[in-house]
């Protein structure tokens, strides 16, 4: 069976100047939920729109279920359900009318009533789109993608700006689609979303994949599953005193974030007592100390030196 989505050495240059995508390759298998994780402006939307056949790449190849976009594009669109990052659907149509309109574009769509039920929009079926909440609108956008009964679902930042409850509702919808055998490609800049939802993901920065794997593999690569963060007074951490912390037992990585020191450690019970001693020896005072599980955020920060959501 061909890969659901495959692209090789994708490049996209806007106006001959701005390089949005710089040699990006992906292979997504059928039945997978794959995430493109990266900060704003990393080239996620450009990449997903090239894969969706909406943008022409400057160079590189794309195949969807083994087929290239150049021919058969209308046939290929029958297999895909797409939710763009920002689509304002007609406000003067009802939810049902909107879903029925999108259903009419496909040869064999699902029934509007079923999709309404699946996406918990049944109560709002006759409400105007203009009257929906943000979460309901986003579910409607996904409904218009699902009504065509797609094999592959593309979601560009499906939960950006949503409240936690709406996000969880959407995650359930995406999981259900996957359980039915569907393939999902989504972009997000929420690491928790990527961690919980995706079987595999690619971290994208400056138009390139800088790391790829399952969420746990990526965290594994940090060397430790735990992060110890602390701040000590009388000690300036401007990168000059990295070594004392790096020498502590079980420490894999050291990172300075303003005055905060972040240690990625394998075994916190070995590191912390040694850390306390070291602080005391320097004559400094510990202002605070926390430990937590390492996350994809740490992976990203370690790879790029930046946070995912830097405004």
């Amino acid at each position: 069976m061909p890969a659901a989505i495959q692209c090789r050495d994708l490049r996209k240059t806007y106006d001959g100047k701005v390089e949005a995508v710089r040699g990006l390759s992906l292979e997504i298998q059928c039945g997978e939920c794959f995430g493109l994780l990266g900060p704003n402006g990393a080239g996620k939307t450009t990449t997903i729109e090239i894969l969706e056949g909406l943008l022409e790449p400057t160079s590189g190849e794309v195949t969807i279920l083994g087929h290239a976009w150049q021919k058969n594009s209308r046939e290929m669109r029958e297999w895909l359900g797409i939710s763009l990052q920002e689509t304002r659907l007609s406000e003067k149509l009802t939810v049902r009318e909107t879903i029925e309109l999108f259903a009419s574009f496909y040869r064999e769509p699902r029934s509007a009533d079923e999709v309404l039920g699946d996406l918990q929009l049944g109560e709002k079926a006759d409400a105007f789109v203009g009257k929906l909440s943000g979460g309901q609108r986003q579910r409607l956008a996904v409904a218009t993608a699902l009504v065509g009964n797609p094999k592959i679902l593309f979601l560009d930042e499906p939960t950006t700006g949503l409240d936690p409850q709406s996000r969880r509702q959407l995650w359930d919808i995406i999981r259900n689609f996957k359980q039915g055998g569907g393939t999902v490609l989504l972009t997000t800049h929420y690491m928790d979303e990527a961690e919980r939802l995706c079987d595999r993901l690619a971290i994208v920065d400056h138009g390139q994949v800088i790391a790829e794997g399952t969420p746990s593999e990526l965290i594994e690569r940090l060397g430790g599953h735990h992060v110890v963060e602390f701040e000590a007074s009388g000690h300036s951490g401007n990168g000059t005193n990295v070594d004392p912390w790096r020498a502590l037992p079980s420490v894999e990585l050291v990172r300075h974030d303003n005055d905060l020191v972040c240690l990625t450690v394998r075994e916190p019970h070995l590191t912390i007592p040694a850390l306390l001693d070291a602080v005391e020896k320097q004559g400094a005072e510990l202002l605070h100390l926390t430990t937590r599980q390492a996350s994809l955020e740490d992976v990203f920060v370690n790879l790029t030196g930046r946070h995912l959501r830097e405004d």
Partner: protein
Amino acid sequence: MSLAQEIPTTPSGLPTVRNGRWSAFSHLVIVRMKELKREPEVIFWVFGFPLLLALGLGIAFRNKPADVTSVAVVQGARAQEVMSLIARSAQASSIRAEVLNKPQALKGFRLGKYDLVVESDGNGGIQYLYDPARPESVLSRSEVDDAVQASAGRKNPLPTSAVISNEPGSRYIDFLIPGLIGMNLMNSGMWSIGFALVDYRQRKLLKRYVATPMRRSDFLLALAGGRLLLMVTEVGLLLGFGALVFHMPVLGSLLSILLLSAIGAVGFAGLGLLTASRAQKIESVSGLINLIMMPMWIFSGVFFSYERFPAVIHPFIKALPLTALNDALRATILEGAPLTSQAGRLLVLLLWGGIAFVLALRWFRWT
């Protein structure tokens, strides 16, 4: 299709519906009509505004009863004679004369109550007191003089006659209504297509549509189809309004009027499509549409005949699509001219629409 068989079947195995070839087209047309119906301001600009314009202008330029001139005749020797000469004249019905003493007559004249003062000149004749700066006073002088001279027995060396013309078909309102139909076809063609497309593009809805298997041609056909459906209502409403309220004669057949309107509507839809082919913002397309329509409002003979412009620019005016449409509508509605006699005008319309459409498709940006 063999292509579909290589692809894993529907993952979900969920029940599906089968759509026919024209399901997308018909849904797009229905949705377009619903969207329009649910925008009250659209209903007003498309239907209410032209009717109000027709009503207002029709009333302002209605045919008033013939003007009556008021004359003060100063008491004295010839007063009764003048009065009877006027009463016997052919113009008696349009001259209202009163006998007054001189101060009253002069005061009334000053106040504009009378257009003319008639008195004896003391030498056996009569004299007129009038104000050459007041057109109605000048008119009154010649009217009254003509009346009394004729009644007194003057023979005209050249026999003349006059016929009053206010028959339906030659009045201002009859000129106006076909012009308003033409203007309305232009306005709603340009706005409903141009505005809708840029709005869809701005909202990323065009991009969302082309991300589905929807045929792009179906989408454009549906826009045109919606336009034609609306056109029938617009034209019918204005035509019916003119015929019922102002008794405008409709000599051409309804079919040829609708066919002509359809060609006009599609032509302007093509121009609307061209203006909207690349614009990303509503503001820029609004400016563009106004820029294109403005010269036609002025030159194309909507409210007044373009014959008033110097003859040298007539060829340019006649090459404008709205001029061609207005001329053709007037000829068909008011004179009952067959469409075959208007090939030139139809060609102008079709060329504008056709060239605009081809260019629009070349430049059109879906995303």
